[in-house]
């Protein structure tokens, strides 16, 4: 649930990066953080294990700029992808306005993507939100591994597995190199803003 402050002319929206463990959610935020220091007014907050796995979430605000006189601030979060952290994952999803689903392109992770997407649907439903209605973007991450001869799933397989019914915008990406990380972010921001607009009626 986004919040609009009419007095200070500010909009806050919550965007959550979801997906299987080690898929690259935190890496997306790290790249954004490096690229946009001028738009990120504070440090990135990460609650993680010693092994750098997300334990609760990563968080950072991102200043989008002015839209119709309102300064728009999106709060970017990641969830912990590991299956066992479902309770905390669900907490992070509270009040979410838009979701980026970061899928792992590695062939060996095919099933994990499906399980995680199903889990997203379940956890959204716990907040009475519909995966078919919420602003959602898919990202097929780790495309760079293809160049190293590591087996990755072809895009059409990923589309068939994950996006056949959803039919949402999707991006092949590399969070490590930064390919399409910004395009993914721009897309989810724009979808989220359009959804606010519809919420008016």
């Amino acid at each position, binding site marked *: 649930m986004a919040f*609009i402050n009419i007095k200070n002319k500010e909009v*806050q929206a*919550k965007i959550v990066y979801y997906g299987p463990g080690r898929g690259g959610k935190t890496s997306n935020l790290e790249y954004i953080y490096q690229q946009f220091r001028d738009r990120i007014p504070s*440090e990135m907050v990460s609650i993680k294990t010693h092994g750098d796995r997300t334990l609760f979430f990563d*968080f950072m605000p991102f200043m989008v700029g002015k839209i119709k006189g309102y300064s728009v601030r999106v*709060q970017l979060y990641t969830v912990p992808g590991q299956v066992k952290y479902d309770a905390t994952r669900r907490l992070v999803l509270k009040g979410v306005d838009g979701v980026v689903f970061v899928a792992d392109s590695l062939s060996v992770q095919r099933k994990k993507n499906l399980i995680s997407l199903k889990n997203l649907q379940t956890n959204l439903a716990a907040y009475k939100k519909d995966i078919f209605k919420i602003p959602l973007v898919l990202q097929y991450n780790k495309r760079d591994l293809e160049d190293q001869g590591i087996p990755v799933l072809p895009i059409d397989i990923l589309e068939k597995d994950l996006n056949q019914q959803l039919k949402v915008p999707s991006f092949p990406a590399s969070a490590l190199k930064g390919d399409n990380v910004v395009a993914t972010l721009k897309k989810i921001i724009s*979808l989220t803003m359009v959804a606010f607009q519809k919420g008016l009626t």
Partner: protein
Amino acid sequence: MASYEENSVSFTENSLDQRQLEEIERILHSDLISNGVHCVLLIDLAGNIIAKDDNGASRIDMYSLAALSAANFGAVEAMAKIVGEEEFALLFHKGESESLYFGKVNNELLIITVFGKEISLGLLRMKVADAMEHIRKIWRKF
């Protein structure tokens, strides 16, 4: 960026009108900041800041504090359920010079105060309780 219609002032569920916001800010100031609280935040459970105030001397990253507080509150509430409680009444973290006190205003709102030695915990709890009562009244109207 997406296109926007003109004059779309409130394109979401959660929006108070200017007068309500001003009233809330006045309460935060008179009940809490005037009594020595360093910084106060009114947030929703998603971690969005609804209103904030400080004594002018605090250098706190309020947005991170809001995100962490909402998550922490959610985690503690989930723990309460696990042991069979509806919720834990007192949420308080005491530090050497800065302390934190959380209050649940209603099912949607949390109040977070950052305070030091200028104010006792007893007085603070009373003032926070007053402020929460005032805010509930305003929120109901909206």
